[in-house]
């Protein structure tokens, strides 16, 4: 089950990544090899095994509904490349 170029460009678009033609070819080969390797798992008989819904054998980790302190506006915005009027500023988006 090798990856075709269309899969690479489709996923790249969803991830907002841009690749040259050569890069797409290389990625199709590399990612295809990864998928082929993962495919070896389908050689196993899993008909008697319960599907894994989560990798951790832990459940129900909750916290109480209690308010704790927040960051100040200044601290919250400290790492923002741009800010304005107490807000993070990002390139204009369609409403």
């Amino acid at each position, binding site marked *: 089950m090798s990856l075709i170029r269309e899969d690479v460009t489709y996923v790249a*678009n*969803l991830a*907002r990544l841009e690749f040259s033609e050569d890069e797409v070819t290389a990625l199709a080969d590399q990612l295809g090899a990864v998928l082929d390797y993962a495919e070896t798992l389908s050689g196993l008989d899993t008909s008697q095994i319960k599907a894994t*819904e*989560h*990798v*951790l054998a*832990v*459940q*129900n*980790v*909750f*916290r*109480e*509904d*209690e*308010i*704790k302190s*927040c*960051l*100040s*506006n200044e601290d*919250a*915005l400290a790492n923002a490349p*741009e800010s*304005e*009027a*107490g*807000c*993070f*500023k*990002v*390139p*204009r*988006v369609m*409403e």
Partner: protein
Amino acid sequence: MEYEIVIGMEIHVELGTKTKIFCSCPTEFGQDENTHTCPVCLGMPGVLPVLNEKVVEYATRAGLALNCEIAHFSKMDRKNYFYPDLPKAYQTSQFDLPICTGGAVGIEVDGVKKDIGITRIHIEEDAGKLLHESADGTLLDVNRCGVPLIEIVTEPDLRSAEEARAFAEKVRNILEYTGVSDCKMEQGSMRFDVNLSIREKGSEVLGTRTEMKNLNSFRALIRAVQYESKRQIIELKKGREIIQETRKWDDAKGVSSSLRSKEEAHDYRYFPEPDLVPIVLEPSYIEKIKSELPELPEAKKKRYVDEYKLPEYDAGVLTTTGVTARFFEEAVALYNEPKQISNWMMVEIPPLLKENEQSMETITITPAQLVELLKLVKDKVISGTSGKEVLKEMFISGKNAGDIVKEQGLAQMSDTGELEAIIEKIVADNPKSVEDIGAGNEKAYGFLTGQVMKATKGKANAQVANEIIRAVVAKHLA
């Protein structure tokens, strides 16, 4: 060809928890921008979210109230999309194993009852708020990021704008009763998405649908459905195909317009959230929450008819919201005259709420204050007309009915001696009316009663006054 409208809805409801779904920041509405944030809801690298136990409890309660199955095992997933309203670039939600499945809500439109199926309810986090105020960019307020939501997804069972509205109102009513949300539409606590398609009546196949997101009032919901169904029917009549897409409803202009093509935008690449562990709910936990559910609107309405002997209409109006029902029940507990209380709550109070910019949520009059007034009317201390004036004054000044009656001298005049003197004079001053009555014109009594009310500024006890008028007129005619 006859067309049929097919609607499915998604309703987002903000849960009324004190803190966010995965961190301990407050959920309070209307605060200064970016003052309710922490590394978790800001999406900083390396942070670990922890699920708020109240979110699980409220979602379970909502699911039970909407007749759903509560999942023994459910889990959280990441829904990936690029939009700056979520700093993490994914929304933590539930994909294939939601907390509730398979519910139903009964609605009634024009006397026709039907059940609307609920496919599922899942829990997720709300996104931040984008402000389009900057000259050269978009501003982001993260306060709302991580506020807990439930998303209620229906089957495509709705067939008209009226049904959509009835369903949305019913859900709001039930959720408000259960106390899982304040359901304040104006604060965005409840938002509707509508999936709508058109098909030939009688067909079993669904047409291509469009989706309209974030309708934030019942009015917007109705108008958007009406507009979009009409638009699609016109397209089909012209022989055109409906394009599957997300459309934006512009409530000011009353039109919907294409926003983006759906297929690609909806490839969210869901995968299990590795930072949050599964939610496993034991039957004992679910049973406990079920046993704590309050009386729901349907049951309450039936009880009002059975126990208080109220007409079905009254019972329906009084149980529309939890706060209205609570007000009524408190009043009845103090004063066992359900119908009188119902009349005043349905007829007199609503216009005064509007006039004083209040609602049943913010009403300044207590059930005890209303009861005091109603007793004065019932005991004929004041007339019904004066009662309405007193109620008006109670809204304005906040004073008790008894004090207003005293201050304004509104107590009815039942003193026969005083009334007799006034009536003697009125009858003497109106010989024409006496003559008319003598000639058999009973209507002239009405004129005399009117004169008495005018002379006493409406304070005369009408029954006592009428008896005296008849006696005095008889004396004059004798």
